């Protein structure tokens, strides 16, 4: 039996699961406030832009988005199998492809800020 290559993705899945467990609920609370339209003045473009323009801010944003994407992608691959979809290779290309696209978009946007 050959050793599996799943550790590449599982490593990102596990790291991402931990990161999203710590940060995502708080992030959602913030966007929920924004969706309510509460305190529109607190979401100033300048303040958020300044954070994203700072090198450490960029690194944090990139890290959170990258790990969230690959965490979700890998778990979605497993979940597809659990729902009875047996075309694992196709599923893997689709979910990892989406994660790669999101990663690429994040890099491009961050470089433009």
């Amino acid at each position, binding site marked *: *039996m*050959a*050793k*599996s*290559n*799943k*550790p*590449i993705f*599982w*490593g990102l899945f*596990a790291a991402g699961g931990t990161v999203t467990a710590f940060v995502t609920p708080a992030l959602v609370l913030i966007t929920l406030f924004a969706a309510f339209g509460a305190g529109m003045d607190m979401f100033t473009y300048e303040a958020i832009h300044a954070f994203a323009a700072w090198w450490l801010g960029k690194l944090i944003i990139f890290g959170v988005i990258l790990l969230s994407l690959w965490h979700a992608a890998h778990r979605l691959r*497993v979940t597809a*199998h*659990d729902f009875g979809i047996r075309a694992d290779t196709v599923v893997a290309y689709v979910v990892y492809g989406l994660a790669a696209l999101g990663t690429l978009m994040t890099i491009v946007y961050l470089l433009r800020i």
Partner: protein
Amino acid sequence: MSERQIQLEVLRYNPETDSAPRFQTYAVPCLNEWVVLDALNYVKENLDPTLSYRWSCHMAVCGSCGMMINGEPKLGCKAFIHEYGDSIRVEPLAHFPIERDLVTVVEDFIAKLASVKPYLIPKEDKPVSAGEFKQTPAELMKFKQYTLCINCMLCYAACPQYGLVPEFVGPAALALAHRYNQDSRDGGRDQRQEVVASDEGVWECSFVGACSEVCPKHVDPAGALQQIKVASTIDWYKEHLMPWVKK
């Protein structure tokens, strides 16, 4: 001693005459301190000598009497009648083929158990004259809980991934591989990883956690499997990203 009439529904299957299993119900006068295995023994002795099932020790040590009791993998000798209602449904362990009545075909598990080399493979041969392999209490604690496994296969009956993908090496065998990997006297991890770190090894596990919930000896196979995943992932990154680091 209080007595209670129980309707014991047992899944029967006779390979010589039946094309599919069917339920047969027995009315069993049970004493309150009985376990389900006692009820089966009563049936065998008094009502129906053709009923087949495995059992031996009657004290949760031998691991023979695993069965589905009201849909849950249990040891027949550890499932107390007083914890159930007046009707109890007994079936052979899920995910295993039925040989006859409650007896399942377990060759698959035995082969998988053997495939992970569940025995000490010393780092180097040592003559008896060189003395014993010493181990501290802390080193013993690293693997002690995994030594409690009695190979009852309840974890395989609980694991949906084993049910869906029969090639999966499965909880008990992998937890036992981990038991020897964690042993300070052992040097066989590289050999075991060939099976353990394959797609059909630990990577078929999605951490449902059912194995640990049903384990009658609190071995926590699910925990062992996640620890194997962490270690195998560190192996992989070391091997591919830092090939200059030798193990």
